[in-house]
């Protein structure tokens, strides 16, 4: 396995009695797009600041290419930041902002001009060199901030919720472009966001955080398909979470029935939570359904109908369907055994990964590092 470019070893951060990060362990490999996903106050920005060097951990070690960098100041780290509010220097124009790092290193005028136009081309702002920062729109300022950070040729680019101030359409475009830039340059990106959709769309690897801890890390598909607990399942996308009992390996009981599934490795008759994603559920004829539900409500969402229903045990179900359903009518609810995901209560991430590896031979070979 290649050496990680950044490694956190039992890193903790606290201000007085206020613990912001409990013991964090993580590894970042070179050339990938990482996302720290969590709600505000989860500690994701603190991790970013520790990486960039604006904070020193109160406990634990941070390594950059194997060397401890706990006390290395930000200007000595080959890590650059795109700040949430862009932090462009208002006393300089676009060229001077992008060339700031090179000016400090005393690069030649010709070299700077070349690099700046290359970077501005990369973020699609060619010809904007002489503009003042105050003349730019939010999206353009965002691009200048990215160009400025990349002009320094960092090993790692860390981005602190850079898209949160942009409107929906622009955010979509920037997501695509950021991913594109990352893949073209092959630089490691560490992206912080609270938007799960953004995280799923852009990342190679996601760390889901809550309350100063990493709850789960994995590829977007792994995390979406196999959330470790209730919090992650709720946070990443919509889900139906139903209490159930694991009768034996590959057999789970919920909503008053027993179903074949693909999970195992639990005690017989262990109480569990069952996750079913709304888009994995189909409404069919009552006779063909695995469960029978009554439709409560339906709302049109453009590309699908969001339908809420309840079964005979009064469990509530969310279904995403392409066809409209009639409110008050009874339908059959159909899903495949692979659509059922089982979550044990209070399972640690190591146990979870080990169990998955054992029981999911055919998929997710990189579920654990």
């Amino acid at each position, binding site marked *: 396995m290649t050496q990680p470019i950044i490694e956190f070893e039992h890193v903790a951060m606290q201000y007085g009695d206020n613990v912001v990060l409990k013991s964090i362990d993580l590894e970042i490999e070179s050339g990938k797009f990482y996302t720290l996903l969590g709600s505000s106050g989860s500690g994701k920005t603190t991790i970013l600041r520790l990486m960039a060097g604006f904070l020193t951990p109160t406990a634990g070690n941070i390594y950059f290419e194997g060397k401890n960098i706990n006390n290395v100041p930000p200007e000595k780290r080959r*890590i650059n*930041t795109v700040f949430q509010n862009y932090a462009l220097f208002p006393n300089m124009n676009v060229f001077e902002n992008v060339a700031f790092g090179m000016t400090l290193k005393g690069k030649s005028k010709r070299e700077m001009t070349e690099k700046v136009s290359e970077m501005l081309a990369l973020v699609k702002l060619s010809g904007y060199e002489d503009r003042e920062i105050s003349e730019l729109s939010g999206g353009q300022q965002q691009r200048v901030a990215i160009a400025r950070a990349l002009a320094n040729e960092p090993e790692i680019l860390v981005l602190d919720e850079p898209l949160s101030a942009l409107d929906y359409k622009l955010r979509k475009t920037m997501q695509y472009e950021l991913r594109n830039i990352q893949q073209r340059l092959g630089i490691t990106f560490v992206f912080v966001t609270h938007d799960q959709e953004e995280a799923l769309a852009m990342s190679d690897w996601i760390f889901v955080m809550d309350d100063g801890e990493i709850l789960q890390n994995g590829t977007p598909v792994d995390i979406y398909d196999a959330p470790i607990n209730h919090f992650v399942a709720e946070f990443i996308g919509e889900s139906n979470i139903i209490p159930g009992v694991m009768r034996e390996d590959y057999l789970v009981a919920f909503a008053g029935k027993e179903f074949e599934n693909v999970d195992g490795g639990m005690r017989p008759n262990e109480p569990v939570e069952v996750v079913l994603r709304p888009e994995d559920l189909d409404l069919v004829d009552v006779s063909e359904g695995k469960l029978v539900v009554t439709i409560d409500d339906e709302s049109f969402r453009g590309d699908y109908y969001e339908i809420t229903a309840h079964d005979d045990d009064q469990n509530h179900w969310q279904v995403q369907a392409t066809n409209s359903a009639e409110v008050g009518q009874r339908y059959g609810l159909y899903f495949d055994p692979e659509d059922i995901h089982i979550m044990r209560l209070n399972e640690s991430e190591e146990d979870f990964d080990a169990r998955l590896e054992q029981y999911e031979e055919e998929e997710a070979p990189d579920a654990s590092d």
Partner: protein
Amino acid sequence: MHQTKAFNYSVPYYAWLLLFVIAPVILLLFESFMDVHGNFTLNNYQTYFSSGTYIRMTFNSVFFAFMVTVITLAISYPMALIMSRLKHAQFWLMLVILPTWVNLLLKAYAFIGLFAKQGTLNEFLTFVGIGPQQIMFTDGAFMAVAAYVQIPFMIMPIFNSLVEIDQSLVNAARDLGASSAQTLRKVIIPLSMNGVRTGVQAVFIPTLSLFMITRLIGGNRVITLGTAIEEHFLVTQNWGMGSTIGIILIIAMAITMYLTRDRKQGGK
């Protein structure tokens, strides 16, 4: 309707401006064209520009005001910078502002106690073996006291402009490889220039017309335009000449304001 209402509320302000700003300036201008007997004349201006004394006095004023401003700035900028980073910044700012509540005359007398032949400072100099020096009535003493009096007016605007700088800009500079010294030079100082400009205006212009301190501490060896105006109005009773110097002073202020004006945002 709304317009008339807004106008009604603004009447006191316009009245104030008219009575206490515009009228005095017009009177001053009018008076500057009068001789001692109340006849119209251009002599005052002719005297001002032809006699070397007034020109030298003006040059002196500008020179001392410039020196005092430079000294004040040299002390105030680092002080404001340090204060803006302290935990209880508002408390320290309070300590800086407090002396401005004390009457200028009292402060001047306090300095006489410090600088006099048998004053505290000379006692100290004798104690360390240098022996008593003539401190009172020197240019140095005048500049020291003037700078002391003006420091709060320089610190306040600089402090405010420093506090307003977004911390993420400082972080961004460090992030891009700037040392603390480079961050100060390339980001913090340029972004606090507005405060410096305001501070320079607040110190330079009043110092041009200081007269109390020139007399008490400078012992009339330092004669500024302010001293000259006081002399003409109170001693020689030549109001015309006093007004002429007043007009010169107003023009000097206008020039200072122009030179230290806020140029186009962010541009060079």
